[in-house]
């Protein structure tokens, strides 16, 4: 899991997922 510092009460987390033979960095932004 990758994270960024919380700014403006918003948190972003990410994980790199293999989808078949390709790699997607999925990033979710959510309010604190």
């Amino acid at each position, binding site marked *: *899991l990758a994270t*960024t510092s919380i700014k403006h009460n918003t948190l972003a987390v990410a994980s790199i997922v293999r989808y078949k033979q390709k790699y997607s960095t999925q990033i*979710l932004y959510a309010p604190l």
Partner: protein
Amino acid sequence: SNVANSTIAILPSSLPQLHRAYIMEHLTPEQQQVIQSKNLTPLSTKKSKTRWHFGIRSRSYPLDVMGEIYRALQNLGAEWSKPSEEELWTIRVRWKYSPAKPTVDADLDDFHKPEEEEEEPVSNTPDMMKMQIQLFQLEPNNYLVDFKFGGWEFSNPEENKAGVEGEDDEMSSFSAYPFLHMATRLIMELAVNS
């Protein structure tokens, strides 16, 4: 355009600098004042580079960090297995993950069904998400809490025995969003508590 015998071009008056000159040229000095006061400056495109790092960092004492995490897990209703002696800094978590049951879209392609569409629940989907949380020491007084997705299982142990079909293929089409969502819940709980 540098493409042979083409009359494709960029409209010069649409470029921001020339557009600004065009607007200013057609305004009286008073109107120009008004423009200045209206904050009509170009949107800044300098992107404050998002800095990513693994897990979350902590400078607290290791035992304090572990205590915070267990407390946060408890507040969120998670369960965890008793840590073994060799793995004191690892927490194996299970979360009941039972939001509205996913639907079996007859036609997967209706991505955004209107809300009122009746959703028939799907049976036998695993409702327990597993996660592994581990504390790492980066250097003296600098620790990192890592979160790792641990797959799904059923709260009813009977159903776990059925084994997992397509084990190898399991990781190649799994949705990270429930995991990311639970990680945000835990991080928020830790942020708010601390």
